[in-house]
């Protein structure tokens, strides 16, 4: 990356985003609680974390599939969550597309592949004639590595990897600028995962797409992302460029997460020291006070329960929310 960060255009800006769900009469589930980050134009931003950490909710709230409880999201300078006319909303939907996790559930089984892919083209009137519409569909099918004979078939005739390709073709149909990939490869076999990831990377190079890549597979996220954000229980714990994050993880949670990944290398597995976290992720309905990770953190002290950690830049472009690195609280730890 030769362009200096200052000059790079922020395509997506998320500021203090909160998304709460009501569960039961009095309880509130804080799925996303005060999350801020930005995504530069043309990059891939990876979002990782364990199940229930709010990564998918963040992705969905970003494009108004959920209404935000508080905070704002700017996509290409436009505030997504303000009141919008139908026309404005349509414009937003054309710019931003999504690829879903489960290729078996995200395609309508009663529609042909052609109609699935062309749905966006129809809605946005992107084809003037039936012939142009067909041509567009054929072209998209070829772009994603399928062929035009597949157009008249139904989703059940395809394998998981092929279905995910159809999902990608559907997302590309309206010529989007920004694609949210919500665990696009977790339901696929290892050898097929690489095919889909390579396809996503190729499309990014050719079309200058911006991706938000949500996943729990940390090694794949590292492979595809330029920058990575780590979430835990609804809050962002660390954001950095992906090599920096994997080489110098600062937050104890990131360190534990990285050390937990089993690596396909027996020698390395035999010799490595693992940080094994105790216990489970607490409930987001009643999260711990202060730092949310403190109940499982090997370094936690009283201050972690009392004060919510500040979001600070520890190295260039490497942000972390942990008292261990905060000048004001550093003294409370003896490391």
């Amino acid at each position, binding site marked *: 990356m030769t362009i200096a960060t200052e000059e790079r255009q922020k395509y997506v800006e998320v500021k203090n985003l909160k998304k709460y769900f009501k569960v039961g009469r009095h309880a509130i589930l804080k799925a996303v609680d005060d999350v801020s980050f930005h995504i530069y134009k043309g990059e891939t931003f990876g979002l990782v974390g*364990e*199940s229930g950490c709010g990564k998918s909710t963040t992705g969905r709230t970003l494009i108004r599939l959920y209404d935000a409880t508080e905070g704002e999201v700017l996509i290409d300078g436009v505030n997504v969550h303000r009141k919008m006319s139908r026309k404005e909303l349509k414009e937003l939907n054309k710019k931003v597309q999504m690829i879903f996790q489960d290729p078996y559930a995200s395609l309508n089984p009663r529609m042909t592949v052609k109609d699935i892919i062309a749905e966006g083209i129809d809605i946005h009137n992107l084809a003037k004639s039936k012939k142009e519409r067909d041509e567009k569909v054929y072209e998209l099918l070829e772009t994603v590595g399928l062929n035009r004979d597949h157009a008249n078939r139904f989703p059940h005739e395809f*394998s998981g*990897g*092929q279905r995910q390709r159809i999902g990608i073709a559907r997302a590309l149909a309206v010529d989007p600028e920004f694609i949210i990939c919500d665990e696009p490869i977790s339901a696929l*076999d*290892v*050898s*097929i*995962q*690489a*095919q889909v*990831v*390579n396809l996503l*990377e190729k499309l990014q190079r050719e079309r200058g797409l911006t991706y938000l890549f949500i996943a*729990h597979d*940390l*090694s*794949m996220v*590292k*492979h595809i992302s330029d920058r990575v954000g780590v979430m835990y229980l609804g809050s962002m714990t660390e954001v950095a460029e992906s*090599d920096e994050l*994997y080489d110098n993880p600062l937050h104890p949670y990131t360190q*534990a*997460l990285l*050390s*937990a*990944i*089993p*690596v*396909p*290398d*027996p*020698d*390395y*597995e035999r010799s490595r020291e*693992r940080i*094994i*976290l105790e216990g*489970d*992720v607490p409930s987001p309905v009643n999260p711990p006070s202060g730092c949310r990770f403190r109940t499982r953190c090997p370094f936690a002290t009283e201050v972690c329960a009392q004060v919510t950690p500040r979001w600070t830049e520890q190295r260039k472009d490497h942000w972390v929310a942990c008292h261990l690195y905060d000048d004001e609280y550093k003294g409370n730890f003896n490391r």
Partner: protein
Amino acid sequence: MENILEIKDLHVSFDTYGGEVQAVRGVNLQLKKGEALAIVGESGSGKSVTSKSIMQLLPKPAGRIKSGEILFEGRDLTKFSEKQMQKIRGSEISMIFQDPMTSLNPTMTIGKQIMEGLRKHQNMSKHDALQRAIELLDLVGIPNPEERVKQYPHQFSGGMRQRVVIAIALACNPKVLIADEPTTALDVTIQAQILDLMRDLQNKMDTSIILITHDLGVVANMAQRVAVMYGGRIVETGTVDEIFYKPKHPYTWGLLSSMPKLHSKNSELLAIPGTPPDLANPPKGCPFAPRCPHAMKVCTEFMPEFTQASDTQQVACWLQDERAPKVEPPETIGVGGAGR
């Protein structure tokens, strides 16, 4: 070391509306005493069907063992009646299933579910069984076992439920433990806990383990020996070091190269083109031939035999034949997944 379990030329088929699906087509496997053997492969490669055949848990009447032997301590399990199998299941061979959310009975307390096997197989009194259940919960790392034993599955988290499933599986000190994707449904930090626990228990109890998984990281972490399955057949077996550092089969090369390396710089992943074969209509020759970059004419026509690559490594590939051209594995092979 002696073989505790031996599978000889196993063929398993399913009768479906679309015709016969040959899920397992001639599998040979040996499990030695005290070792952890991993069976890796993609979905549909036949790894779970192989393990279910051992337990005689194939869905009846669709699934049936067509031929072959499964020798457990010299006795052929395929000849056993249901009644005889019930004596084996849970006491001598037990199983850990993939999804801890569905493999426990939601209407029974955890304690009752652990005690079930103990009472049945070992004729323990209620009191003794309860004591043993508490011990087992403690062994698998569940805090407060005296209280927890009275609780129901919904009061446990996913990782804790998998610990309970492991406790049930280990209750009668089985000789063989089959773990079918034991950590796939869990998060990474919980997966690390469970793998750690399983390795620890293996050392303590001297149980032989068959680990079924698609995650090569888990294999490197747990197993001593590996069998790679593809299209209903085993394509390569060897020690864990041989499979990871000196693999001989192009499918094993492909599997290893399609995974991103954690500690190296980004380069394009080497994907295996195409999709796995349809076992309703299995290929005549090597099942991997249509996707193999080194496929020759013979590969599509004849099934390759096993050749001995070392004392412990066997591979079924025509490239091993002396008449075949020399093919070097891709550069990514041999450096290990850590990418140093």
